[in-house]
């Protein structure tokens, strides 16, 4: 079976992740949606790596993981700070950005 199928799988996962970010009000769940999108990209990278027969794509995916780890650390810290300040992690709550 052609490894390109995994790319299709990756797009589906990406779409689910994106929809989760848009739909869920719980900041942690939305954040997990972001993680899923990143992982979908990783899957695509690995699939491409397999298609090309090179492992550079895997290195890229590795880097993405590192970045994602850093992002998780900071993102969760933000969520905790938000929770401390407002006693909630609903994304609809902080509307100070309203112009």
């Amino acid at each position, binding site marked *: 079976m052609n490894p390109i199928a995994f790319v299709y799988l990756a797009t589906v996962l990406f779409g689910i992740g994106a929809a989760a*970010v848009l739909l869920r*009000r719980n900041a942690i769940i939305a954040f997990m949606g972001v993680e899923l999108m990143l992982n979908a990209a990783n899957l695509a990278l690995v699939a491409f790596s397999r298609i090309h027969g090179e492992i550079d794509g895997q290195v890229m995916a590795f880097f993405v993981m590192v970045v994602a780890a850093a992002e998780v650390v900071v993102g969760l810290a933000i969520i905790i700070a938000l929770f401390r300040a407002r006693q909630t992690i609903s994304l*609809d709550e*902080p*509307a100070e950005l*309203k*112009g």
Partner: protein
Amino acid sequence: MLDLTWLLIAVPLASSLVLILLGKRADAWGHWMGLAASTAAFVVGAGAFLQMLGLDAESREHAVHLFTWISGGELTVDAGLLVDPLSITFVLLVTFVGTLIHLYSVGYMEHDPRRRIFFAYLNLFVAAMLLLVLADSYLLLFVGWEGVGLASYLLIGFWNHKPEYATAANKAFVVNRVGDVGLIVAMGLMFAAFGSLSFETVFAHVGDVSTGQLTAIGLALLVAATGKSAQFPLQSWLGDAMAGPTPVSALIHAATMVTAGVYLIVRSAAIFDLTETARLVVAAVGAITLLMGAIIGMAKDDIKKALAASTMSQIGYMMLAAGLGPIGYAFAIFHLLTHGFFKAGMFLGAGSVMHGMNDQVDMRRFGALRTAMVVTWVTFGLGWLAILGVPPFSGFWSKDKIIESAFVGEGWQPWVFGLAALIGAGLTAYYMSRLFFMTFHGKARWTDDAHPHESPWTMTVPMIVLSVGSGLLGWFLATGDRFTTWLEPVTGHAEHHEPVLAVPVIMALTLVLVAIGAGLAWFQYGRAEVPTTAPAPSLGTMVARNDFYQDSVNRAVFQRPGTHATRTLVYADAALVDGAVNGTGSGLLKLGEFLRRFQSGQVRSYAALILIAVAGLIAAVVLGVL
């Protein structure tokens, strides 16, 4: 001494600064310091004059380099002084008459709390005028020119607590600015034509430039001269300038300011020599002004305004003479010199009369003052005889020469200019005699509170000195053509030309007209009863009394269109320029209001916008648009 001429400018200027900066501390002795500065300038000027007398006629031109003023690219302007017979003549006139006026002011301004400032301004005036006449380039001359304008503004508006006096000062300043534009244009044209503004370079190269350019320069210079010398059509400020204290009027009319225009024309003789057209215009302006001033003078009841009109008329004579070319330059300056003496004397006399009459200026309220103020009567009478041109008083020697010169030439010009000068002499005799008789003769028509008395010595001494000059200066200078020879290095040698009428005929005609004018005035104002209020005027009198409606004309011709043009420009500015700017602003504001709706503050809405944008980008890639 010739190298020390810079002191002429520096001393009065320093004195002026000191008087202004020291403030009240100098109140007690400030006027004496001003007088001392002026006297010192006169001493330096006299020393330079004596030294120059000892030189040959050819080497009487002395340049004093002061410093390099502007140095940039093609333009290098050196600040330097040019000491030659012409400028020395002016220096002597300005410093001598100026000093006398300073002395006079000590008495005249005695009760004014701001006398110190007055002397500071007088010194500034003298310094600026000396800079004007001593400058060796048009640019430096312009500095003095503007300095004179500033000083005259300050002095005319000296009593600026009265709004109309302040307005008069503003008027003088603004009208002078119009003339200044002429000088600036002239300088621009000169720089374009010669690449320099120094007299030396310009006069050395006048032959290399086309006549058209020279005519343009000449006309621009004429505009400048009309502004400063109150010639037609920029004459309107002079009458109102009487708002200043009388010594100021004397200074403006006799020694400084109004003579600057004549000086400018004569100094630029090299240019005017080569352009017939410009000369003709100068002469025409002079002729028009001399008649106009004389007619206005006939109708004025205000003694100072009548004298002002007389000044206008006399300067008109000088301009006419200057416009006649080489034969007239020397006579223009000659008349300027004698006029400086007798007009200063008469102004000081008028000031003395006002001083004794509670600052009354209406001549219909004077009369029979000859007994109350003997010195004033005698000195004023000498000035009167001089301006009438009665021999052997000084006006005769200078004015008669101008009338003779006006008759020289070919075609219609000698007849027009000559007759204008001739008739002007008759009119002058009439209005000056009218003034004299109304003031000093006839019956007393004083107001009840008037107690005429003779002025203190500080005021009478200058008047006596000036009246001596009015009496004898003309004869002294005209004997053996002393003055014309003296000025020859500057104005050039004038071939003698025969007038279209024989000289004795002209002289006789002049004297007859003067006699008729004076006699008429005697019958009307000397012998007959003078009503204390002016009778209902005829049309001509009305026109003359209102200065030929010069202000209305100016308003209709210049001010109204100017106002409308300004309004249009303001409207255009508001509608187009501001409209564009404000439109941009309000447009951006509306755009912002529209975009604001996307700033809902909802994080998920932002995420949705990002997603839609990404979808758009991907779509563009897929569809091959990008």
